[in-house]
């Protein structure tokens, strides 16, 4: 009988102590998302199913699989699994193959009609041009995210390997 009473009182006391502790020791906002975001290649290509790199970083922090980034490739998976203490998993092919060399968009200038659709699509403003005027890609800025290829009505953008 005394044992039961003692055990009950013990659990009550410990429960109270933990409740007190969890109030006082609030965890600070997690800097995890920013660290993950810094490791992602920031091409904002969206091949991972998320509109940009930051949303994908938040998803990874929340626990989503970290193997959906084709530009990142195998090195990204190893660094992320090290950072998050998860085991290294193989690359998820459903999101496109791993890009080994960096690509650059290139506009074939004779076919471009100046519709500025690709300018709106480019996440890093790497395409220079205006309505009905000639468009060209800034080589240093282009991250090879292939987003401008789809909206182009005359399909005059092709992807070349960076020299």
């Amino acid at each position, binding site marked *: 009988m005394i044992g039961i009473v003692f055990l009950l009182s013990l659990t009550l006391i410990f429960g109270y102590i933990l409740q007190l502790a969890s109030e006082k020791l609030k965890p600070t906002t997690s800097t995890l998302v920013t660290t993950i975001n810094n490791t992602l290649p920031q091409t904002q290509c969206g091949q991972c199913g998320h509109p940009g790199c930051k949303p994908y970083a938040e998803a990874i922090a929340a626990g989503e699989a970290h193997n959906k980034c084709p530009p990142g490739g195998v*090195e990204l998976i*190893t*660094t992320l699994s*090290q950072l998050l203490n998860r085991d290294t998993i193989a690359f998820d092919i459903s999101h496109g193959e791993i890009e080994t060399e960096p690509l650059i968009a290139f506009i074939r200038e004779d076919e471009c009609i100046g519709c500025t659709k690709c300018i709106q699509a480019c996440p890093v403003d790497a395409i220079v041009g205006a309505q009905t005027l000639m468009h060209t890609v800034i080589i240093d800025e282009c991250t090879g995210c292939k987003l401008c290829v789809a909206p182009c009505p005359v399909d005059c953008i092709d992807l070349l390997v960076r020299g």
Partner: protein
Amino acid sequence: MKKIPLVELEPHIDLDNRHARWSNEAKHFNVPTTMLKVSMALIPGIIVLWYWYGNGVWLQILNAGFWACIGESIVLKIRQQPIIPALSDYSALLAGLLLGICLPAQAPWWLGCWGGLTASMLGKQLFGGLGQNPFNPAMLAYLILLLGFPIEMTVWLDPYSGADMQTAATPLDRLNTPGALWPWVSVQLAFLIGGLWLIQQKIIPYALPAGVVIGFLIITALVGLPFTSVILGASCFGAFFIATDPVTSPNTQAAKWLFALGVGGLTAYIRSLEHFPDGFAFAIILMNSLAPWFDQLFQPKPSHFK
């Protein structure tokens, strides 16, 4: 960011049309000659031992050396790696030699065989082969034998009467009988000569033996052991031949001193506990495990692309 080791990442660097290689006369110092020179430095010590304990000493040394090479070739066969180049650097042979010296002259043959096999297989090849084993193979094998077969390991003939000595010491151990001081003094002096020659040949750094002896003296003074134990134990043999194994000792100068002082100190301390004949093997294994950490402490940080 953990770097992917280059060896697995890309095929081995193409040596053929790479840059010119230095002319090889500057090469007075390569792996096989190092190992041979260390073996030669052992000879004075072995001769003195042979004088006191009869030709059982030679048997043990050759037996352990032979089995060490057998163990090495077995593992290399299993791992489908070329056997001849690995054996031709005499490192397995040297490990066997060092172990053979520590075995009592009258020990049965299978003791040397077991010791040689464990030295080369468990001590060296299991951890990745030449240059990658954290523990000194000879000392590891000696420790296994000491803990596994305590009786056979501590039976030494009395140098004078040839009678059975129950708790006699091997060069690594301590002799209880006060009378038998002189044999050990001569053994230590012989190994001392070999060791100094090695230092002169620049095969071993001076920091390690010096540190071991200093550490040993300090702790014996602190713990209050009789001064004679300095001569009896493994001091000179261990300091010059075991502690200076380049593979298992640290690389930076400061870490070498710390490592050597640790080995000397621990040996004296364990010997003062009087439970085991001699603490050198334990001290070496413990300090070998600390060596990589010491290196990391004293290693200058290389500068990278920030």
